[in-house]
């Protein structure tokens, strides 16, 4: 079998490392991000200030923290429409438990973690048990949580917002963990940015270097085949929903500890921001393809665009128009770059 030796293959066109890098899903999005950045650097003077950079990063991180598990879930072939309100639920539980029990806020934080994980598990288990599309299941959870958030808050607090827990024991420490910020030079950096980057790193490691990551790709790429070769698809999906819940818990605690008070109606609609970030970052809607880094770049593009329009002081009536146009252009550029990279690679 002499001709089977692993010598350079004549059927492969040579391919440089640069090109290889360009072929990665997230690096298409990076080009989009750079383009958006350059655009606003010219269009909006204040955009290039260091302090603005902190604001943009903060806006990106609050979306990005949730975009990471949502991207993982999308790679695993499912959606979670309840992700937005689950953040609020998590904050509400934490706040109301601490307040009503007059307990140290850390107790509330712990209870909230358990409750939120249970919500995630509920989504996942309903999904694998009923075999209904995740769109329907999580839409049901979304509506129910929206109702529960409002109904329970009014029942317990008597108003649509929680009571302030700013004066309770344990608040300062919890605030430090979830909502502190440091000033580095003239940039104000929120702790959410650290959470965000940490989550991206962990998710990337899990996706590329663990069995669970392999299973996530397989569950989304071809669930039938994955099941046939013995991948615990159901367990993987439940785990993904719990990962979403875990990050919702982090976001929820941030919400609580940075604003003291939680409005029960919040979070509705945010689920789409997370999905947008994941998709801009290169996740396929159909599952089986994407990356955590991509979702971070997607969140960053979204953060830059939505804040850049404010910095540019464009007519606010047209805000959504600009937002839509920018997102479309960024994604188009992303797709175009990827196509070019593949064709010439």
């Amino acid at each position, binding site marked *: 079998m002499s001709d*089977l030796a*692993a010598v350079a293959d004549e*059927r*492969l066109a040579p391919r440089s490392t640069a090109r290889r890098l360009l072929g990665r899903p997230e690096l298409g999005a990076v080009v989009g991000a750079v383009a958006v950045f350059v655009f606003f650097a010219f269009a909006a003077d204040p955009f290039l200030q260091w302090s603005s950079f902190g604001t943009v990063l903060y806006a990106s991180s609050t979306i990005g923290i949730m975009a990471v598990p949502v991207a993982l879930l999308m790679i695993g072939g499912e959606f979670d429409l309840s992700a937005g309100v689950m953040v609020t639920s998590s904050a509400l539980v934490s706040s109301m438990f601490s307040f009503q029990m007059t307990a140290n806020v850390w107790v509330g934080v712990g209870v909230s973690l358990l409750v939120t994980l249970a919500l995630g598990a509920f989504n996942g288990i309903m999904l694998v048990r009923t075999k209904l599309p995740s769109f329907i299941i999580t839409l049901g959870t979304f509506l129910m949580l929206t109702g529960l958030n409002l109904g329970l808050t009014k029942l317990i607090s008597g108003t649509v917002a929680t009571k302030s827990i700013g004066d309770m024991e344990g608040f300062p420490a919890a605030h430090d963990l979830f909502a502190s910020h440091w000033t580095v030079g003239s940039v104000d950096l929120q702790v959410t940015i650290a959470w965000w980057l940490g989550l991206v790193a962990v998710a990337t490691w899990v996706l590329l270097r663990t069995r669970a990551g392999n299973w996530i790709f*397989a569950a989304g790429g071809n669930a039938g085949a*994955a099941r046939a*070769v013995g991948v615990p698809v159901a367990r993987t999906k439940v785990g993904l929903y719990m990962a979403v819940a875990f990050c919702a818990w982090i976001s929820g605690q941030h919400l609580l500890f940075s604003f003291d008070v939680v409005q029960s109606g919040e979070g509705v609609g945010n689920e789409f921001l997370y999905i947008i970030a994941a998709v801009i970052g290169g996740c396929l809607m159909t599952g*089986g393809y994407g990356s955590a880094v991509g979702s971070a770049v997607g969140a960053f593009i979204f953060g830059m665009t939505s804040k850049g329009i404010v910095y540019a002081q464009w007519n606010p009536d047209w805000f959504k128009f600009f937002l839509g146009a920018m997102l479309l252009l960024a994604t188009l550029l992303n797709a175009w770059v990827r196509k070019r990279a593949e064709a010439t690679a």
Partner: protein
Amino acid sequence: MTTTTDTAAAPLVALTDVSKSYGNVRALRDVSLEVHAGEITCVLGDNGAGKSTLIKIISGLHPHDSGSYAVAGEQVRHASPRDALDRGIATVYQDLAVVPLMPVWRNFFLGSEPTKGRGPLRRLDVATMRGTTRAALLRMGIDLRDVDQPIGTLSGGERQCVAIARAVHFGARVLVLDEPTAALGVKQSGMVLKYVAAARDAGLGVVLITHNPHHAFLVGDRFVLLKRGTMSGSHFKEDITLDELTREMAGGSELDELTHELSRAPAAGAPAAGDTPAADLPAQDPPAATDPETRA
């Protein structure tokens, strides 16, 4: 009929009077099958006869509706293919179980990934995975350019080889192959049969599905014939000739008629070097019942 064997121990896999319906389609009715260590059981039959359905029951992909299923004498009811895999049953499915967008090496080890490190640092042993994949495919005669390319971009036959190499690599006690050679080239087909024989020699039980009676007869020890969802025959190799087997697979009498029609066809082209058209026929599948020996 296949109850007494020379191998003393309980069969590795024994299906008794198994039935299976998809909705109102009765795909299998009262089929029995035994797989013994060191033997190759061939399942033969027409298109749509229910062969793949039988395979899917063995490999735990579908539960059976009635009848019993025993692995090494123990009654089982597999809830998922994982159960079957854990009992040492590795399968190559006809509609290939691969994840198109994943790289070849990830597909190869999917569901049984080797890891290194411990605790939170436990991670995929990527180097081993790539190396093993490349080597296993090279041994089958597939020289992949790049084990990192998505398996969906491989040719049909290359994909088939990955699936077979994987099953062979992980096959612990029973190896189930659903038309493994269908998409394969001449060289690769030979390789696969060699692997099947080697697995048998290593003491594995093998279930082989094929439409090629020659392949079947070459390596098979027992033959289960399915027809429209029911068992139409079950033979040991010593009880049957290749010719009888072929005839039974093709549905008997109609075949002769067809052979005549076909044998006229090539006459329209240029005459083959040395061979008469009729002499060609035995060498290819369909009209094999007209093997020279048989007609002589």
